[in-house]
């Protein structure tokens, strides 16, 4: 049981590493938004792993957290994309 | 309405209210503004008189407002604060009249008088401060209130002077804050009490106390224009004459010196300070400043700069008197606190009149002016002779006691410094007096700049300009002549010293 838990947690950690690396390297706006989204989902993966950490039924709180987290992540990505588009238009003018 | 509580609050409040009222008055309502100014000033003198009588009959005035759990704002009238209160309120009344006459027709008068009264509030606060934190609060307020006065003219030179002034005084303020906080951590809220409060700490915190003393002297020394920290005073001469009169004789420099006197007598206690071994270096520094200031004054061609350097040296008389252990040294210091104010403000009034009526600023443009302006130059001569220390003027009285203090304390170099500075004073004041009275009058040979049209033309210049100068000259003469009586500054100084050295 704990083995599965640790695999997902480990995967989440790896994903966080990739996201940080991408953020450090790329300067293009879209690439950064993508990298930053993977970081978000990595966090949610970690939460998912935590839900299964002890035996018995998976504990519901991380699930609630992940749902709200996703909502927040989507809205901030939307805002970032809107800003990026407006900047692009301004640059063209 | 218990007067003991409210009077010390009303004193600074009166000039604060004047300042706020002036803010409301529009720029062109000259008469109303002058009325408010003078009302505030007279009210203050009346209150000081009442308080003076109260203190004389052993009445305790104290107002205590809690600032935070451990800190409280204390306004208390004791004997030393009474001395400074009387000096600053009377001189402020005269300076207001002078300023009204001087600024006739110049722009931004509302702003000027507003900050002028704010400056007075701060000075009142400083003189009434009952503990170190209140003193610090009003000490910093004074810096801020004086800055707009220095830059009042808005020229590039005025702003440069303002910058230098701020640089010096803000650093001084920060250092004083450090010192005060340090004392606060060692001994908690320090109430001013004759004989000082830090004595019990002696064995354990000797070096810390020495460090604190140096910090406080540096912080206060900026405003007291001790040697390395005096740079701002001559450059601040670019301010209009009533401001330089205010700066030099009434408010700013006096705050610094008053602070040092409080520090030595009421925080450290003079006996303890001597045992700490901090007073000797202070007296050497003061001695050096006296001679340095006089020598620099010798080479200044601008009249007001020469008076500025002479203030630098005269202030250190007070510090020297305070630093020399002994009753007569203290009497000399306290008396000179008042005498220097009277004499120096007369000199600045005369410089202002000369500058304002004839546009004379340089020392060498004075020849023969005595015939054309006998009263002004008469007042200037009396004050100048006072500065030199010839009897029966006030300057002689304090120099006599300072010399006596120095000799009794066994350091004869104090006497040598006093003599040297008197000779130097002669060197830079007598030529001015000689040119003014006996010089070939330039008025006939070269056409002097056209004389300004004056509001109330007395014989030589407008009355509001001339009257204060004559009054302060007369006061500095009588302060010296009737020094023996109880009501003269010397009498008050003797009374204070008796109480201080009584236990």
């Amino acid at each position, binding site marked *: 049981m704990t083995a599965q838990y640790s695999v997902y947690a480990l995967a989440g950690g790896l994903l966080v590493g990739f996201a*940080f690396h991408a*953020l*450090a*390297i790329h*300067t293009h706006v879209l690439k*950064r938004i993508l990298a930053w989204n993977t970081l978000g989902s990595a966090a949610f993966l970690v939460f998912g792993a935590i839900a299964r950490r002890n035996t018995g039924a998976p504990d519901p709180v991380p699930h609630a957290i992940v749902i709200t987290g996703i909502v927040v992540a989507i809205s901030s990505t939307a805002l970032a994309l809107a800003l990026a588009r407006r900047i692009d238009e301004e640059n063209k003018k | 309405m218990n007067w003991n509580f409210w009077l010390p609050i009303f004193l600074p409040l009166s000039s604060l209210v004047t300042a706020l009222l002036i803010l409301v008055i529009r720029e062109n309502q000259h008469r109303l503004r002058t009325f408010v100014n003078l009302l505030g000033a007279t009210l203050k003198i009346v209150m000081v008189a009442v308080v003076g009588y109260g203190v004389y009959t052993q009445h305790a005035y104290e107002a205590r407002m809690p600032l935070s759990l451990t800190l409280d704002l204390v306004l208390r009238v004791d004997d030393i604060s009474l001395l400074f209160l009387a000096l600053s309120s009377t001189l402020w009344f005269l300076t207001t009249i002078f300023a009204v006459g001087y600024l006739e027709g110049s722009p931004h008068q509302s702003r000027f008088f507003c900050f002028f009264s704010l400056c007075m509030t701060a000075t009142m606060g400083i003189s009434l401060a009952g503990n170190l934190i209140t003193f610090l609060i009003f000490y910093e307020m004074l810096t801020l209130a004086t800055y707009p006065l220095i830059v009042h003219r808005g020229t590039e030179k005025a702003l440069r002077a303002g910058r230098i002034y701020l640089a010096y005084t803000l650093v001084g303020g920060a250092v004083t804050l450090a010192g005060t906080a340090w004392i606060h951590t060692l001994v908690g809220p320090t109430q001013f009490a004759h004989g000082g409060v830090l004595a019990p700490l002696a064995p354990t915190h000797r070096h810390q106390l020495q460090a604190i003393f140096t910090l406080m002297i540096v912080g206060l020394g900026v405003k007291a224009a001790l040697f390395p920290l005096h740079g701002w005073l001559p450059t601040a001469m670019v301010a209009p004459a009533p401001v330089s009169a205010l700066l030099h004789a009434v408010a700013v420099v006096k705050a610094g010196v008053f602070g040092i006197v409080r520090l030595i007598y009421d925080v450290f206690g003079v006996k303890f300070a001597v045992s700490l071994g901090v007073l000797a270096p202070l007296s050497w520094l003061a001695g050096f400043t006296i001679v340095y200031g006089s020598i620099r004054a010798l*080479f200044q061609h601008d009249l007001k700069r020469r008076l500025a350097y002479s203030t630098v040296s005269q202030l250190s008389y007070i510090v020297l008197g305070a630093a020399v252990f002994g009753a007569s040294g203290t009497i000399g210091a306290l008396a000179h606190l008042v005498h220097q104010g009277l004499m120096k403000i007369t000199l600045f009034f005369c410089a202002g009149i000369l500058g304002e009526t004839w546009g004379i600023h340089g020392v060498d443009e004075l020849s023969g002016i005595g015939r054309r302006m*006998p009263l002004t130059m008469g007042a200037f001569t009396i004050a100048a*002779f006072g500065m030199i*220390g*010839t*009897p*029966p003027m006030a300057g*002689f*009285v304090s*120099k*006599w006691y300072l*010399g*006596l203090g120095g*000799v*009794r304390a066994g350091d004869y170099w104090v*006497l040598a410094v006093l*003599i040297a500075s*008197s*000779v130097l004073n*002669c060197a830079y004041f*007598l030529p001015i007096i000689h040119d003014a*009275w*006996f010089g070939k009058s330039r008025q006939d040979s070269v056409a002097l700049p056209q004389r300004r049209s004056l509001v109330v033309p007395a014989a030589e210049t407008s009355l509001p300009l001339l009257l204060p100068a004559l009054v302060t000259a007369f006061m500095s003469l009588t302060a*010296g*002549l*009737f*020094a*023996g*009586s109880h009501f*003269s500054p010397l009498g008050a100084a003797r009374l204070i010293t008796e109480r201080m050295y009584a236990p």
Partner: protein
Amino acid sequence: MNGAILLVSALIPLVLAITGLLNGARVAMDRITPWAPLPALLTALIAPSLQVSMPSLLFGAEFDLDALGRVFLGLSAVLWLAAGHFSCGYFENRKSERRHRFFFLLTMSGNLGLTVAADAVTFYSFFALMTFSAYPLVIHDGTENSRRAGRSYLRLAILGEMLLLSGLLLATSQAGSTEFSALPKAIALAPNRNTIIALLLAGFGVKAGLVPLHAWLPLAHPAAPAPASAVLSGTMIKAGVLGWLRVLPLGDLESSTWSGILLASGIFMNLYGAICGFVQVRPKEALAYSSVSQMGYLTLAAGLALEPDGVAPAAIAACAAYTVHHGIAKAALFLGVGALSHADGPRVRVLLLTGSLYCGLSLAGFPLTTGAYAKWLLKSIPAGKTWNAWASPLLLVTSIATAFLVARIIMLLVRLQPDQVKHAYGFPLAMRLLPAWGSLVLLGVLGPWLLPIALRSAGLHVTSFSALEHIGGGAALVLWTTPLLYIGRRLWLRTAAQPAIPPGDLLTFVGSKLERLTPISKFLAVFTPWKKPFSRFTQIRTEGLIKAVVRMEEAQTRWDFGMIALALTWTTLWVFLHWRTG
């Protein structure tokens, strides 16, 4: 209340001086000023010995009309009265006379005040008032020469004031109070009494013309107008002597070193003054040097007063007597010079010359003159065997020297041409000047009889003058001087354009050396050129720093910096947290 007369008599001239400033009172003042010193004279003559103390004035002012004070007050009042009258007719126009009068009255008030002051601070205040208001008298005629004289007078006066101030301060710190009654004893007991005595001697010595400090006298007296120089020589330099007699511990000192020093300097002053005076070409300078030499006698007397074996009262009496004698004679001579320069008729010149001759002889101490009596008093001071042995030969030599100097002065006076100054006054000139001069000469003539009476009434017990005892001494003097005068006549008759020793001898010599020294301002100017490059150096440095800082700030806004900074902070925090203490 009667004590207040003392103060009033001293302050009346001051009050008159101030009222004189008002335009309205100008004309009335012309008549009143000459009589200003009258109340002081009356107080000196008839007032009982008064004591008054005013606690609120200065540091508790004390006034006391004791014997010495009465003598000096009387002398000053007489001389100021004469000079006041003399100055009425002396000046060329009203305007300059009025300017002179204001300072004349101020100095008078100072002089009268200090004679009756009984505590150091009041004495010092009147002394300072007299000194500083005498300066305008010296530079009255506004020529460059009088300006130079005024400058040297002021410099030495300030030096004197400062020495005096330190001496008095040291003395008061010992005595605890400023009264003259307490000071001398405290000085005698003081551990640093030698410094105090030296300071006081020098401080008063400047005024009294002690040799190295006398240099202002031969410059200032000739420059001042006649009435002013008469008073300067007559009573003002005596203030120095009065100071000595009041403050110095007369008779209380153990060692007689100080009295020895004073004796030697007195003699030296006498001879030095005579020699310098002898070579002068203008009568006023010669008279000034004669004052210096005569002050030698007073220093002598003060020295004797300092003798340890209590001969002070006699010495003081002799000193007072000599002061009165010299004051009157010297004032008469100076007024004589002033009158001669205005004398238009031959008869008036002859009268003036004879009067001056008499005063000169009295100075030299010829028999039957006040000078002889005063010198006899000096000789008769019972100051121990050394003095008795040396007194008569010394006095003889000094008298001969003075005689030569007097001869020189009379010769110069004879040759003096009256300067053609037209005067705006109505009545003939000489008539106005003569009464004042004449009264002084008359006082001089009646001196031998009047002087002992005056002194005894003042309270100083002095043996009276009897012609018999003086015949012997006087005869020896006459026998010696007349042949010597005849032999050395070529010397004192010689006329030279320029005096061998210029007036103000020491000062002019030292002064010229000082001018050549680069003035301090040039010395300071050396430093200013360094300021410019130093500020330039700091300016370049700060600009460089600012550019670097701004560049670093821009660098931060790049993306990667933000991420790396975040990661870095995280890891360092983690490590630090991990290293928990405990």
